């Protein structure tokens, strides 16, 4: 019988204790000894210009600075998501020329590996983070454009066209080499024919965006063996 009243008393007492704690929270008081953080409202700022503070090592959008890009494609190779696509071409004077430097900011995960891989500190991460737009192909603030290097930004159709042309050129070269091998006497060093056969194979993988980077990795040791080949 006494247990009944003790239970009722405990019920009321503990209920009031709990209500007191949450009641104080309702009045926004600073309370629990273990409590260190509260939720702060995001003020909706979209760039550093609005005075918001970010951390010193904050990793924002990518940007090429200065003329430091040498077209080594290290960033492209190290990117875990393949959101960087670099194309280089040899001009008439033999100088290497970056014709395309695309960064798909929608895919970028801001890991910063490309910045670490860049040997000339040409690729940096800015402190800008606002990328929300109403259309995914709103290109201007999402893709890196290297206008000052004289390069252009290829549309997907242009990329496919260039790839097709390169494939055709590689095929044609292969046919010509095979025809020349048949017509001419068998050339003494079979290594020359192998080198020629390897060259078109190397030309194909780096410029096919839909293909995974796997074909390019076996090609890279071959590229290092033949640094003066025009394809790489």
């Amino acid at each position, binding site marked *: 019988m006494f247990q*009944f009243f003790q239970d009722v008393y405990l019920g009321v007492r503990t209920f009031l204790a709990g209500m007191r704690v949450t009641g104080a929270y309702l009045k926004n*008081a600073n309370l629990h*000894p273990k409590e260190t953080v509260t939720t702060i409202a995001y003020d909706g700022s979209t760039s550093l210009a609005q005075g918001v503070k970010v951390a010193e090592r904050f990793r924002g959008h990518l940007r090429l600075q200065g003329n430091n890009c040498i077209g080594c494609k290290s960033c492209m190779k190290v990117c875990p998501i393949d959101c960087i696509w670099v194309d280089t071409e040899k001009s008439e004077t033999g100088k290497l020329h970056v014709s395309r430097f695309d960064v798909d900011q929608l895919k970028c995960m801001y890991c910063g590996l490309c910045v670490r891989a860049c040997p000339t500190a040409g690729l940096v991460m800015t402190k800008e983070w606002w990328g929300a737009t109403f259309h995914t192909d709103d290109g201007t603030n999402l893709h890196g454009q290297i206008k000052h290097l004289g390069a252009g930004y290829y549309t997907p159709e242009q990329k496919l066209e260039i790839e097709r042309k390169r494939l055709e050129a590689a095929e044609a070269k292969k046919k010509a080499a095979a025809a020349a091998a048949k017509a001419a006497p068998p050339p003494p060093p079979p290594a020359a024919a192998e080198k020629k056969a390897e060259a078109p194979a190397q030309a194909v993988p780096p410029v096919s965006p839909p293909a995974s980077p796997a074909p390019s990795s076996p090609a890279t040791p071959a590229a290092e063996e033949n640094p003066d080949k025009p394809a790489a």
Partner: protein
Amino acid sequence: MPDLYDFLMTHHWGSSASAFIAVFVACGVAVGVVLFVVGFSTYVERKVAADIQRRIGPNQCNIGPFFGELLRVIVRNGADPRADPLARAMAAVCKPFLPPLDALDKVLSKLAPGVLIFMADGLKLILKEDIIPDAADKRLFRAAPYIVLASALGGLAVLPFSDAVYVADFNIGIFYVAAITSLEVLGILMAGWASNNKWALLGGMRAAAQIVSYELPVGLAVATGILVSGTMSMQGMTFDQLSLRHAGSGGWLWQWNLFHPAMFVLAPAYFLAALAECNRTPFDIPEAESELVAGYHTEYSGMRFSLFFMAEYAMMVVTSAVAVTLFLGGWSTGIGSLEWALMAKEPQFDAATGLMTAPPVYVWYGTLLHLLAFALKTYAMIFLMMWIRWTLPRFRVDQMMALCWKKLIPISLACLLCTAAWMIARMMLAQELGAATLERITFWLRAAFALGVAAWLVWYFRGPIAPAEVVAEEEVIASAGSAPLP
């Protein structure tokens, strides 16, 4: 006293159709207002939850970004030189609304940021895909939400919003409320069964057990209230708590039923039982999110689910209003002099017995003030329900049953017996001391009691509390273990 029902039935209507229309309009107004309050309550709930949990809650859905932008687009379109007459007409109609809308937005986004979230939620729920399980009992599945909502809203018919604002004043008002709100068990069982889902069925069974069990403490508290007030009519209870014995007396806060000793013990019991009726935490096992997915409304999506949700909040409104009428004096303001000042026509008393023969009639601003008082008190109860939700953890189903049958029902029965005994004792005391002296003694005793309770409440909830006190309170809670529950 003549109410809307009497008016409708005695007035000579041209045709029965206009009578029906009149009734529907009256009920429509009541239901519309309450459903708006229900929607707004979801916003208040989220804000209260956020405050208790030290976060911010919804703060983005303001009037400006939606309706302001819409109006601005219409006005801009109409100002275009190539616009057709319809666009120009729409722009002309919308233009004068822009400045007041901007002003309202400015005020509202400071006072209640993100308040339109309940409309956005409603719109989202309407636009959701209506999924009905293939093997479900389609008719029962479709009908269940409407039964639950109808029973919850049915209680609105007798609520005394003000002295002259009510739909009907049955002479068995409070009995009717208890009866019609118990119909929701049917809807919940239908939902649980028709979903063709074991967990939904379990949730439905648990809900039925819970609601049916907790009808008993509710009924006993209501019975004690009827004993104390002497009438089952809701308006009658309010007038009884006003205690207008002779000119200039009564209407004070401590004369409310809450400060009657037995009712003071029963008020928390009724409140807990009301929480269980609404399936509110800590009694929300039927819809336990972490246990049964969503209990009996697991398979419901979109508007069907929101009907259950609205029914829960509508039950909150109805049970809070009943609690206010039973315990907190209904629409009375609690200040006696103010009550007498607001009367246009004073009540008539029978010379011999001292009973009131004709009720008072209040001036129009008195009626409005009473409406405001009722609304504030009901909302205080709803706020208390929300506060409790974010304080207490959920009960286990056996704990919930034990609480009802082993604690609340014995307490309610004991209080009912004590009240009956006390009424007899009062009669004998009145014969000894004289009615007037007894009145004066009870008046001042109750005033002292009410003052003591108010002072203790203010002291206990005097926040902020120091971290050491928080630890102390948590120790009290921890040392009790799961007591008083098994």
